[in-house]
């Protein structure tokens, strides 16, 4: 069983062991382009003035992602932050605010959030966009389904032409849109 969730909803969520110890809170959701999945979370300490922690939480160490906390078995699941992502990536490669371009060079809008399908893994299945003139009316918030793999650098995110016509307004319609874009063979996606 899996559930759709917006990635920014995870930022700030407490990380708690099954023994009930609160270790910190989620700071960054780290998304690996190679497999289109979340590979883990960087962490910050608790409280207003707490800074980032050296240790990070790999996805394999997550016991459950609940509505109020990310549960882990115990403190042995942590890894070093540098194992998860480079410092320059953490500083410069935030997807939020990035521009989404089609393979034909049309700017569809800017990323407002990332939609995750959370089950045994956490797959990136779409972006929440604030639309440009290419998807009228401009400034609207829509959900854009993604094929399995997309190009993303943090500055520009490139998607096939065909997905531009599959934007939906809410999560209820989104599952069908994702199914539709993922059922198209990779070679035919840009020919819509």
């Amino acid at each position: 069983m899996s559930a759709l969730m917006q990635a920014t909803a995870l930022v700030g969520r407490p990380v708690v062991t099954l023994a009930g110890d609160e270790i910190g809170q989620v700071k960054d959701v780290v998304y690996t382009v190679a497999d289109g999945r979340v590979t883990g979370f960087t962490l910050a300490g608790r409280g207003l003035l707490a800074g980032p922690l050296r240790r990070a939480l790999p996805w394999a160490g997550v016991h459950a992602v609940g509505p109020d906390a990310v549960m882990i078995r115990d403190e042995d699941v942590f890894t070093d932050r540098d194992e998860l992502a480079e410092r320059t990536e953490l500083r410069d490669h935030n997807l939020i605010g990035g521009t989404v371009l089609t393979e034909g060079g049309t700017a569809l809008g800017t990323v407002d959030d990332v939609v995750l399908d959370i089950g045994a893994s956490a797959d990136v299945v779409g972006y929440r966009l604030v639309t440009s003139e290419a998807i009228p009316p401009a400034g609207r918030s829509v959900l854009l389904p993604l094929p399995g793999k997309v190009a993303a650098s943090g500055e520009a995110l490139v998607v096939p032409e065909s997905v531009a016509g599959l934007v939906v307004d809410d999560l209820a319609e989104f599952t069908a849109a994702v199914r539709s874009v993922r059922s198209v063979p990779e070679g035919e996606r840009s020919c819509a």
Partner: protein
Amino acid sequence: MDWWVWIFVTMAIAVLAAGLIPAIQRLRRRGGVVVHQLGNEPKGRSR
């Protein structure tokens, strides 16, 4: 105080501020969704 003391103190404050402001900004950076690139292996990863 002599004029050169004021210059020294002002320069010391400027140097401290130049170092501290980026450090505070790094600490205060809000979380988000970070992209880890294909073939860009973080340092220290065991293979």
